[in-house]
């Protein structure tokens, strides 16, 4: 029983990371049709920014941890907004080329991170409580899992509220459905593109600091490895659907944990099989409306 609870909560913690990446991917794809391969780099840069701050301020206190999260989000948002403004915008409506540019950016940025911070993992520490465990129904759960789950829920609620209660949110929701009709109402939908990239980048950068805490290290490849699963989550959940991404994140990560434990480390395979199964049965994903 305690193993099941450990796997479940750890899975949800990992799912929280997937969601922080997938939420942005899904929104960006839904609104703009851009599959963003550079999204992992937003996360990685956020993680390194958080680490740089933490090692200067002293990692073992909550103030630093919160400051790192904020800095990670800000850096991720700035990187993402710049990407949209300088690279994606030039290729308006040319989806394949937009994808290619993000591929180039992903390769170049990871190489640059290699150059700046080296290829080896850098081990990080945080507030002591994060490295401790809490007993839940007999299972010792690492505390950072709770922070991850909480953070993902806060981000989910934050994005939902933004989409529901702001004019930009209204434009984004309408644009996901029918972009050209939004412009035909006299709205410059491109401004919403930058906003969506910034939100996605903020969630990813924020997730970068949390990922560093979850894995215990930062490295230039930390974003890229999460990105692949975030892609899978996005497709399973339905491209463009935020709630789909949330549900799929939890399912994929929990399934992965259980398969890794009970089926001899086959978590990644099971996820791929799930993806294949979902696409064959319902190509538009769990909550997606378009394929």
């Amino acid at each position, binding site marked *: 029983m305690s193993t099941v609870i450990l796997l479940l909560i750890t899975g949800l913690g990992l799912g929280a990371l997937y969601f922080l990446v997938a939420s942005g991917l899904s929104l960006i794809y839904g609104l703009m049709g851009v599959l963003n391969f550079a999204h992992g780099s937003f996360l990685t840069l956020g993680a390194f920014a958080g680490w740089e701050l933490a090692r200067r301020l002293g990692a073992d206190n909550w103030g630093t941890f919160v400051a790192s999260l904020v800095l990670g989000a800000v850096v991720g948002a700035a990187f993402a907004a710049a990407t949209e403004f300088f690279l994606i915008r030039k290729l308006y409506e040319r989806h394949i080329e937009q994808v290619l540019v993000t591929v180039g*950016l992903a390769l*170049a940025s*990871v190489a*640059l991170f290699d150059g700046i911070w080296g290829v080896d993992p850098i081990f990080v520490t945080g507030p002591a409580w994060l490295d401790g465990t809490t007993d839940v129904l007999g299972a010792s759960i690492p505390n950072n899992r709770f922070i991850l789950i909480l953070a993902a829920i806060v981000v989910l609620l934050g994005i939902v509220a933004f989409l529901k209660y702001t004019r930009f949110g209204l434009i984004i929701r309408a644009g996901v459905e029918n972009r050209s009709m939004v412009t035909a109402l006299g709205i410059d939908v491109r401004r919403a593109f930058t906003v969506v990239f910034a939100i996605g980048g903020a969630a990813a950068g924020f997730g970068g600091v949390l990922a560093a805490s979850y894995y215990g290290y930062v490295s230039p490849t930390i974003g890229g490895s999460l990105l692949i699963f975030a892609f899978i989550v996005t497709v399973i959940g339905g*491209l463009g659907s935020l709630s789909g991404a949330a549900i799929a994140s939890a399912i994929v990560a929990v399934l992965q944990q259980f398969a890794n434990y009970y089926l001899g480390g086959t978590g990644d395979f099971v996820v791929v099989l799930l993806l*294949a199964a979902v696409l*064959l049965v319902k190509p538009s994903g769990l909550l997606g409306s378009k394929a």
Partner: protein
Amino acid sequence: MKRVREVLAMPVVKWLLAGVLVGFLAILPLLALNIPGVLPGPTYTPGTLQLLAFSMLIAALALSYHLIFGVAGLLSFGHTLYFAIGAYGLGIALRHFGLELLPAIVLTFIAGLFVAAAVGALSLRVTGISFAMVTLAFAQAGSVLIRKNPGQLTGGDEGLTLDTTHVPDFLVGVLQTKNLYWLCLAILVIVFLVTSWFERSRAGHVVAATRENELRVRVIGIRPYFVKLLTFAIGGVLATVVGMTYLLLQSSATQKLASADFTLTLLVIVVLGGVGYRWGAVIGGVVYTLLDQRLTAFASSDAVSALPDILRIPLSQPLFILGTLFILVVLFLPGGIAGVASRIAKGRTRANDPRDVLEELG
């Protein structure tokens, strides 16, 4: 000038020129050409031949990807899976099954064909970005499988070295590099001919038409699914053939071969060379490999390490320079190298914007 262009555009002349080029490449190991800055040494030295052979293999791999991406318009993110099957399949058949070279090749060929057909059959049920994701996921599964080292077959992170027991002597060892070079050249020529033949065949025309207007193809009573699958399988098995040659040339396979990064590199190569151009894929493959090699040498040179950090760090990362170059090509040189060359060759009269060609793929 116009006359020259007309003559150059004649099919006979084109094939003749290609023949001369292949002939020239074939006698390179017997020459002592030296191009400082491009090649590491004179053309007869094993190091240079090894690099040239490697670049031809990457060109052949890019050609096989051209079939899927450029001709059929399928944005596959899992193409290197079939390349890895070639390298690892042959390696495993030789080392663990103890097969002779020829049966090992046949077995690997069949394995590549089978996996490509199976993955294609599944993933072609979805289109566009979902297709890209499924192919990526399958390739990822392959990459994980290789890393997990099931039954000690793949060697995990260590990689798998070539067991030369059943490989003929003339293909083994540094002294035989020129034979391997000729083998790689032959493979490149074969892949090029197969690709040309397929593009000219009825199936090739149908699949190109499907890329542009699937509905119209359906209307004339052809199910696009099967021609797409055929293209996917041929592209895949060609990659397997190239992968086998890779193992013979490099004597080892590592799990990087199946990584997502390598597929992205392949995409970069095809776009750099020019999407939709056969020659583009070849030129892209060769240019990319040579650039990568030279940039790596450049990165570790004294000139770079003497620079201040702000210049040294980016310049010491070949992938940073290549990635940036790639972004610039996509932004400012649609059609890549071959697109630019073709525009110059045909004068300024090119009717269709190469960007449209690329966008049809969406």
